[in-house]
């Protein structure tokens, strides 16, 4: 039976859905190993200083505990990302609050509570820097005391992890072009935009169980870490350095994972290494799970940012040239900041034609726990700035936000700011027309303007147009060199082997759909192996909106390869039934013992990228979108509420409509939180509102109806034409909402999160306050319901 209805584009049940719904799915904290101990982390109580002494409270029997210090690490004391500046355990100095210093393990988890408190650490405090501005000032003033990060051989300089300089053409020519553009401009529009940190807030906190075996001499022979994570091979890489072991001796297994959003991209290398070191020390498996307060205080968040735009525009609304300066706050160690910055840089010019543009970007060091991956990965920051700036330009020159964008949109055949030729069809004009229609934008614009005159509730509409590149940047996919296996098992059922992980977003399901569609088999027949690095090949990390497009394409190619083999060698007909496929596969296996296809990444078209000049084909494919927000601002409470949201995107092919809609709705909700609710309140580098009572994530009662619309224009890069969508919905909500708030109130807000206190300040102070609003929150007054709940 060949398939009558295509399974790609249908919405079959999630592969792991039944187990999740029945509560049978086993997350890491549901698991236990024989003889297992529990681990805990002793963390720094200050932001920056020299460790003077570590003493152990005499009333505790320390013999019962395994204690790991930096000196116990058999290999290198580093959590490797792009450089090795990030220690696994602080040795002589701490550089951020909650930095891990010691690890403890005990058979009884409760015993760890007093033990963690029983470790007394004294410090010689050093001055810290806590904002991008303070970090820059230290460099400018040559303030050696506040140079908190020395530089690196990977391109970092004092207090600066990474810088990029990106030109829309040859550097000198572009500078000349810019000079001429600003000379000829009818208007020069300048503004500065800020975005805050954001917590990923996956439902399941970080957690792992580690095991460690030793040889006859007592040396570590191999380690195994299982846990909640996105990228098993990142953890393998980290363990090889910590233990000085080859890859095959570091086994990593991803278990059912309760959400990630980037928060489990780089961080599991930390907790995984810690648990493995404790397992080494105590000779038992060790579980470490964080509670919410520890997870929020000590693990990564989205990078805060500051973006400055200066734009030359003609009076008929043509962008003549622009400069963009992006700065992100990377926290205390480089971790993934250079790559986050890269995506921020490349997305900063947006879906527009810029005759001349220069983007300067840098990631600064601060004494805050390292910021890390979070859905969108730099793009939400720079797109927020751009799409607010487009509204500012429109207002300045007297065009509508719509008209200004229409005059500058990129289209098919144009080149992006990195010089990438858009040879696949792009129709932003149509997307904008449809999004404004679906949301009744024009009708509302007129109606609200009238109604607002007589109401303390001011309503408005606004939108953002943007794109998101799928896959690793530039040469990244080539470097990843992803590998996928497809086995056909004894019973004739195909099994996909990838390191791409399921953490709620639908990896298992869509990859099985691709195989089912290509192999002409029922979806139910396709299996996908648990990501266990002793079994699955490295298909790359599960990040960067790359799984559907890049890994999906590899699964499609592997499926074609299986079919080709069976057609050539077993005479499987072009159109086959399930039974014919099984018979052919079993006959092949009888002769050869196994049936496996292995395929490696190959770009569908030639991809040129120059890492030095930051020019070329930045991403294999882009998803394009226009998001429209409708808001209400209550002038009695200064609260802004999103009352309706329309999200239109062109994503190639919608592989699974239910999951795709879920991705967009969830991302929009997260984007609404980013814009209006979720503020990290810091005090000297420490997150003070590390509880869900005070870190305000929107609830269903705060979210509007979210209308999701798709356009499908198949791309050659993904399976069946699909592109990536995972991060896209994080980009558009914040600027669309603040544009709508400006439409409602006439006031331009350029900083998120935008809390009622901030709106209040602007409505009541009349001059622009230097600070004020939610900056005045007192982080030492935690107040009700969670007295003094700090980690």
């Amino acid at each position, binding site marked *: 039976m060949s398939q009558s209805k295509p399974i790609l584009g249908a919405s079959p049940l999630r592969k792991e859905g039944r187990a999740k719904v029945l509560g049978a799915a086993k997350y890491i904290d549901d698991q236990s190993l024989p003889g297992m101990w529990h681990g805990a982390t002793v963390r720094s109580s200050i932001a920056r200083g020299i460790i003077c002494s570590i003493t152990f409270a005499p009333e505790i029997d320390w013999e019962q505990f395994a204690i790991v210090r930096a000196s116990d690490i058999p290999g290198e004391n580093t959590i490797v990302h792009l450089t090795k500046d990030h220690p696994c355990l602080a040795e002589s100095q701490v550089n951020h609050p909650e930095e891990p210093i010691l690890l403890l393990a005990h058979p009884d988890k409760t015993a760890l509570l007093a033990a963690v408190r029983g470790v007394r650490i004294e410090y010689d405090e050093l001055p810290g820097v806590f904002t991008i501005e303070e970090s820059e000032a230290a460099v400018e003033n040559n303030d050696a005391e506040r140079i908190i990060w020395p530089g690196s051989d990977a391109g970092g300089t004092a207090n600066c992890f990474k810088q990029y300089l990106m030109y829309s053409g040859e550097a000198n020519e572009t500078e000349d072009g810019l000079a001429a553009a600003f000379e000829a401009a009818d208007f020069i529009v300048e503004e500065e935009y800020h975005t805050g940190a954001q917590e990923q807030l996956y439902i399941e906190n970080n957690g792992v169980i580690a095991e460690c075996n030793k040889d006859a001499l007592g040396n570590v022979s191999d380690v195994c870490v299982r846990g909640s994570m996105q990228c098993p091979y990142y953890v393998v890489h980290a363990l090889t350095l910590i233990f000085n072991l080859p890859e095959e001796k570091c086994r990593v297994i991803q278990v059912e994972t309760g959400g990630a959003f980037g928060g489990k991209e780089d961080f599991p290398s930390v907790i995984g290494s810690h648990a493995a070191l404790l397992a080494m020390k105590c000779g038992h498996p060790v579980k470490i799970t964080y509670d919410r307060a520890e997870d929020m205080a000590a693990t990564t968040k989205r990078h805060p940012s500051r973006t400055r735009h200066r734009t030359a525009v003609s009076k008929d609304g043509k962008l003549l040239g622009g400069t963009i300066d992006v700065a992100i706050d990377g926290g205390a160690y480089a971790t993934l900041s250079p790559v986050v910055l890269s995506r921020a840089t490349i997305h900063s010019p947006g879906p527009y034609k810029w005759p001349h543009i220069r983007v300067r970007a840098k990631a600064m060091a601060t004494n805050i726990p390292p910021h890390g991956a979070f859905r969108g990965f730099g793009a939400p920051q720079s797109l927020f700035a751009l799409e607010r700036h487009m509204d500012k330009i429109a207002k300045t020159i007297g065009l509508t936000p719509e008209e200004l964008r229409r005059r500058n949109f990129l289209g098919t055949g144009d080149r992006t700011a990195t010089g990438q030729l858009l040879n696949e069809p792009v129709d932003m004009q149509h997307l904008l027309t449809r999004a404004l229609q679906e949301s009744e934008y024009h009708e509302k614009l007129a109606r609200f303007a009238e109604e607002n005159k007589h109401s303390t509730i001011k309503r408005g509409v606004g939108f953002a147009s943007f794109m998101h590149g799928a896959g690793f940047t530039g040469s990244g996919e080539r470097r990843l060199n992803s590998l996928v296996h497809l086995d056909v098992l004894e019973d004739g059922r195909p099994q996909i082997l990838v390191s791409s992980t399921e953490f709620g977003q639908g990896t298992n399901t869509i990859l099985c759909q691709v195989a089912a569609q290509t192999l002409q088999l029922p979806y139910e027949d396709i299996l996908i192996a648990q990501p266990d690095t002793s079994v699955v090949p490295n298909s790359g990390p599960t990040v960067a909106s790359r799984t559907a497009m890049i890994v999906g394409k590899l699964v499609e190619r592997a499926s074609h390869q299986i079919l080709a083999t069976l057609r050539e060698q077993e005479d499987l007909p072009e159109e086959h039934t399930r039974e014919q496929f099984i018979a052919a596969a079993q006959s092949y296996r009888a002769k050869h013992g196994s049936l496996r296809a292995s395929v490696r990444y190959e770009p569908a078209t030639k991809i040129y990228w120059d890492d030095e000049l930051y020019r070329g084909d930045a991403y294999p494919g882009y998803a394009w979108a226009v998001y429209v927000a409708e808001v209400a601002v209550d002038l*009695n409470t200064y609260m802004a509420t999103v009352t309706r949201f329309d999200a239109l995107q062109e994503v190639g092919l919608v592989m699974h409509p239910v999951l795709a809609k879920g991705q967009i709705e969830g991302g929009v909700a997260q984007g609404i939180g980013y814009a209006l609710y979720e503020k990290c309140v810091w005090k000297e580098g420490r997150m003070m509102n590390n509880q869900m009572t005070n870190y305000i994530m929107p609830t269903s009662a705060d979210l509007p109806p979210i209308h999701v619309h798709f356009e499908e224009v198949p791309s050659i890069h993904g399976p069946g034409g699909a592109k990536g969508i995972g991060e896209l919905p994080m980009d558009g909500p914040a600027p669309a909402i603040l544009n709508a708030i400006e439409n409602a109130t006439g006031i331009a807000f350029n900083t998120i999160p935008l809390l009622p206190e901030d709106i209040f300040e602007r409505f009541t102070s009349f001059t622009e306050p230097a600070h004020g609003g939610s900056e005045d929150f007192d982080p030492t007054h935690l107040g009700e319901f969670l*007295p*003094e709940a700090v980690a």
Partner: protein
Amino acid sequence: MRSDVSLYDLSAPPSLDAALAILAKEPGKYTPIAGGTELMVALGVGRLVQHSLISIQHLRELRFIRVDDKAIHIGAGTTFTDIRRSQAIAEDLPLLIQSASWTGSIANQNRGTLGGNICNASPAADTPPALLAYGATVRLISASGTRTMPYSDFHLGYKKTVLRPDELLHSISVPRDFSDYRQYIRKVGTRNAQSISKIALAAIAKLEGDTIADIRLGAASLTDRPVRCSATEAALQRQRIDGANLDATVRAARAALATEAKPIDDIRSTAKYRAAVAANLLEEFLRSL
């Protein structure tokens, strides 16, 4: 869980009298626990200092809603869900129903009690503004007897109440007849559900023509305790709200409220914001009369 639960003890006496006897024997040793939705949070984060708890959650003597001619009497052990389901409260005390409905989550409302909400004495708690506006009285009970007092005298300061260590809150009585009052309540929280008030105002007023004959205001997060805004009430007594006088009345109300508002900056909001929004809510109420 950041507490070692083996270091805590919990007993559940069979009756109210037995509970009171235990409290009387060693006053201050035991802490009553009702729904536990406050105390268990403290336990979870490792900050519950009281190690001996006596449960009063199961005591039927404390869980009732009784209606007589003059008042509705609500046992301290009555849950928010009980309140939300009461027809009598819905008819006579809509502000109390409303405040119970936006307290925490449904799970919270099933366990959390009115007594716990009041005795915990948070300035941000949700039911006190309504109870203050309605002029509730409280009845306290101990092995040596009972005493009653206006609820507005119950709170002495930040997290301080008149309760003695050997005493329990027995019940709250709320007068019934507000049928000729205009009623208003609004909570301004950090979000629309599962949120702690940044500011909240409950207000009731009786008009004689265009003149305010009686007005009562209860507020949360306006001072260090739930508070009745007596100065503002006094300033509004006999004020006119007709078109010609409304603006002046509103100005007087805002000015009076400013004299008794003493909010703070904390992790959720600012004093400035709280004071301004409290005045806005009051103005919203006055303009709706």
